[in-house]
């Protein structure tokens, strides 16, 4: 088990390095390279040459990569000349709000999705299971931006009970909870569909296991069989699913933040894409990529810890 964790961690380090390479390449396929990214599209060739010389950008690419990476590893993600702030400071301000959004939505999705999946598995092939499956399918296929719009139309325009915009960046999140409702709901509903579908099939597989037949034969009450024996085991694959779904959830967060003007990392990234603010774009992409790598590492390790049957 320890050797598995070590091997898996080493692999994660390699993948994280891969992420930095991809971001580096993205930065360098730009016409004009990083100099243009920083100085803007109208910078004249002399200034670009001077900039390149100053920051060692006239050296071979592998050396540049080394220099850039050592900066990144020291926590220096660059400076946004458009916003006149360091990317580190921008992230420190916006990242916690995104974590709050992603965390609350995922938690809500688990709270709704898991019981829903269990219920469907127990009522398998009945009418209500079928209706819920169709609903899950539709929600799963609905892009976050459309779902968000429908929610705004329903709860802010037709029935004005909730504010249509996310919380403002100047006050603490917890003091503006009503503004959180629609963004969290938008992001959560898509994930609920994913979780409930997965939980349903996992639960159905578990219900067919021999040890449940044994428990039934021993006279364990059906409610206790479901709650204590089946659900616990059926929950295990959900851990892996959380790791796998992470890129999708973060991607959904970007779109959700864009709909509701929610001042998080995704919103920051979106604005940066429109103003061609490349230091911010690279910084956020790096942070997102590395978080996903760490997240899936944690999911895999946690799975190995909670399920002693898994031997690698």
């Amino acid at each position, binding site marked *: 088990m320890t050797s598995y964790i070590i091997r898996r961690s080493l692999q994660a380090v390699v993948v994280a390095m891969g992420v930095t390479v991809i971001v580096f390449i993205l930065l360098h396929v730009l016409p004009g390279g990083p100099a243009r990214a920083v100085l803007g599209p109208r910078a004249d060739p002399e200034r670009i040459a001077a900039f390149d010389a100053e920051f060692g950008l006239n050296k071979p690419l592998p050396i540049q990569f080394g220099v850039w990476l050592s900066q990144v590893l020291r926590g220096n993600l660059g400076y946004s000349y458009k916003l006149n702030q360091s990317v580190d400071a921008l992230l420190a301000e916006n990242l916690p709000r995104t974590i709050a959004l992603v965390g609350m939505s995922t938690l809500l999705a688990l709270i709704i999705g898991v019981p829903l999946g269990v219920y469907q598995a127990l009522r398998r092939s009945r009418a209500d299971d079928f209706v819920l499956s169709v609903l899950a399918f539709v929600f799963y296929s609905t892009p976050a931006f459309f779902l968000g719009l429908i929610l705004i139309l329903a709860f802010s325009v037709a029935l004005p009970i909730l504010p249509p915009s996310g919380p403002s960046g100047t006050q603490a999140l917890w003091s503006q909870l009503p503004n959180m409702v629609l963004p969290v709901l938008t992001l959560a509903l898509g994930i609920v569909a994913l979780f409930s579908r997965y939980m349903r099939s996992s639960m159905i597989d578990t219900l067919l296991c021999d040890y449940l037949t044994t428990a039934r034969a021993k006279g364990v009450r059906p409610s206790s069989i479901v709650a204590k024996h089946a659900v616990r085991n059926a929950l295990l694959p959900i851990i892996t699913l959380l790791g796998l779904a992470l890129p999708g959830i973060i991607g959904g967060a970007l779109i959700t933040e864009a709909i509701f003007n929610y001042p998080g990392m995704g919103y920051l*990234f979106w604005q940066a894409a429109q103003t061609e603010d490349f230091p911010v774009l690279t910084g956020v992409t790096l942070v997102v*990529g590395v978080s996903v790598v760490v997240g899936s590492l944690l999911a895999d390790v946690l799975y190995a810890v909670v399920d002693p049957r898994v031997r690698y």
Partner: protein
Amino acid sequence: MVVALVLFCWIGPLVYRTNQVATALQLANRPPSVRFPLGTDNVGYSILGRLMAGGQTSLEVGLGAAAFALMLGVLWGSVSGYVGGLVDSVMMRIVDATLAIPIIFLLLFIASMVTPSVPLLIFIIGLVSWPTPARLIRAETLSLRHREYVDAARTAGGGHIRVIFRHILPNALGTIIVNGTFQVSDAIIALASLSFLGLGIPPPATNWGEMLSNGVNYVFEGYWWQVLPAGLAIVVIVVAFNLVGDGLRDVFEVRLRRR
């Protein structure tokens, strides 16, 4: 359902003719009526006509990007799985690293550097969605590589490339086709998201995501007809392709089980 939508997008404009080039501001923001069954948008385009024109773009990009992503993914995955060893490890870590960055971030990043057009968007979306098919095809290749008929083909003097293209890939076709349908719906969503975020194709060309993005500005005036049709069209086409994918998967799995 897919066929119906294709007919709607390409045959529809022949039946229901609209002006999708010139704006008509005096007709802007009309609710649904006999003349405009789904109303008009903020510059006076008929929403129904726009839905057809936008659908063409959405489907073109969706199919094109899916085909491109599959091509890259199949090549990458089959080579990686067939060669194996260190090459396989390196190629798969590249796939892992690409998958770690959510597609929408990559898309926005690239789209911010270029001025999008239909072929370019097909290229970009294909370029960011190849890792999933690559991983699937690699797994498929791994399981097929040491079958007897593959060894036989090698013994008979077949080169590596011939073995991959004539013996391994045809047997992985089921996986490829099933993944292809999911790629189409993902690509349509990707295009719609990109356009919704304002980095899609510039007007007067349109697609469903751009229509939604446009309608958002008028949601608070209660102009629901500018938002719902395009959004529902996206949901319907995505559900349709996902259903086709699910159905095909069942078909192919049954065949495998019987074998």
